[in-house]
Structure formats: C-alpha cells, structure tokens
C-alpha cells in the first residue's frame, strides 16, 4: 500500500466490502475511516465488511482504527464485521492482550455476509452438497 493509494470499497448488495491488503500505513488506515464513513452515507449501506485476508500485519494502531471505524459506522446505522484474519495475526493480538471488543470477527467473507443476513441462493452447477441456504439469519 504505497503512498497515494486510495481505499478500495466495493459495493455488495447493501453492504460495503473493504478488502485490506499488504502493508497498511497509518495514513492509509486514517483515510480508510473517512472514505468508508462517506460511502456508508452516500450508498446507504447497512453493513461494512472489512476483509483482512490480504493484510500483512495488524498492530495496536490498526486495531484502534478498526474499532473507531466500527463505532462511528454504528452511529450511522451500519454494522461492521471483520473477516479473513489469519491465525498468526489472531495469535499475535491475543498475546498482546488486544481484544477488538465491539467488533464482530468471523472467519470468512461468507460468514461476514451471513452475519449481515445475506446467504446465497443458487442451483449447484458443480459437485453437489455445497449448498448453504438460510444458515444463520442475521
């Protein structure tokens, strides 16, 4: 995430998908909050899905920014869910005593959508047994 790189927000149903990637600088983290909050208002979103699959490190500052984002989004009527945190990052935060209280954290983007009440409807067009209907209504 080099200088000047802008925040990627992808609209998905009435949510905003925010995939983070690589090294997230403090400047980028701060820009993230502004951008996401503006987009919540503009796009009338009720959910923010921050996916951490591509992130290299989460340190105490990035955690505080995510907590701040979730708090502010909540005041605007949107729920924030974090997905895709790699196990080594979770272990590091745990060791540091960082709890991310107040933000829902789930394993996959699929679970995050599910937590927003969004599950898929589809005719399986491949090997069967992959259906996941109506699981966990948010």
């Amino acid at each position, binding site marked *: 995430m080099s200088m000047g790189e802008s925040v990627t927000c992808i609209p998905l149903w009435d949510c905003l998908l925010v995939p983070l990637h690589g*090294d997230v600088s403090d*400047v980028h983290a701060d820009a993230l909050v502004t951008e996401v909050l503006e987009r919540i208002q503009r796009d009338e979103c009720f959910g923010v899905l921050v996916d951490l699959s591509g992130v290299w490190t989460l340190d*105490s*500052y990035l955690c505080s920014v995510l907590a701040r984002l979730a708090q502010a989004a909540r005041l605007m009527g949107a729920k924030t869910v974090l997905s895709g945190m790699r196990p080594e990052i979770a272990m*590091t935060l745990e060791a*540091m005593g*960082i709890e991310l209280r107040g933000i829902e954290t789930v394993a996959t983007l699929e679970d995050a959508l599910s937590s927003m009440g969004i599950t898929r409807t589809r005719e399986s067009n491949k090997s069967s047994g992959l259906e996941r209907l109506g699981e966990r209504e948010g």
Partner: protein
Amino acid sequence: MFWLGAEFGKAPRLASLQPALPPAMAAYEDDEDSVFPIESDADISHARTVIRQMCGLVGVRGYDAQKVVTTVSELARNIARYVGKGEMRFALDTVEQRIVIVAKDEGPGIPNLDEILAGNYKSRTGLGRGLIGCRKLADHFDIQTSARGTHVRAEFRYGK
C-alpha cells in the same frame, strides 16, 4: 551477530564467530547506511517491510514473523508519533539464533512507564497496548527511558 546498523556491525568481539551470511544479508553488514531513521509514516511502513523481508530470509514465518514485525511496527510508530524522530536497527544473531530489534530516540522519555507496563494506562492516541504488547511478544524485552530519551531492545529466538 550481524547488525543491520553501523554501531553494532563493528563489534569486534563477535566478528570471529561470524558464519557465512545469506547473500542478501551481507549487504547490510558493517554498512553505515543501514540504520533506519524513523520520522514519517512511510518510515514506519519501510521498517515493517525490511524486517518482514529479513524474517523471510532466515525462514522465520507465520506467528514467529508476526511477532517480530508487529513489535517493529509498535516501536517505530511510538518514535514517529511521540518523539518525531529516532532510529531503529535490526540484527540477526546467527550464533544464538535470535533477531534483535533496537529502537532509540532522544525524546522526552516515558515518565509513567510503570503504569503503562502494568496495563493500567488509558491512551488517548491508541489502545495503550503497544509497549506492553511488545514485551509480551518478545522473548527478551528491555526498555530504558529518561528525560534524555528512550532505548528499547527486543529479542526473538528463531530456529528450533
């Protein structure tokens, strides 16, 4: 011990013990330019990137690498944010098999260090878990602070 930084790279006591360096590390050895000045946001990112690559070079991955990179991130930010400028050095001790991180600044020091390390500190700028977190992540953690500045040293074992 191979310091990614001038002051330490010259330590004569360890020179004779040095085994062959991985090629990419050799460039750092005894190199005056390989102290990492920390001032800006970009310097923090750069420090993280360098230490991440250094971990990769010696096969430190997963949780072990995260601990090191996160520590560098916390210490670098503290310098940039609370002092404005300072420097970091990274060293690889292939004999003792440890990665050594040093963060040094000539700032105002941390008068309430005990409170912070006891976990009772409420930060207005962050979570207040940076220093205490680093101490928990590192295998060895040492911090000296006074009105003349702050010097932090964190060591991480690697290999079996």
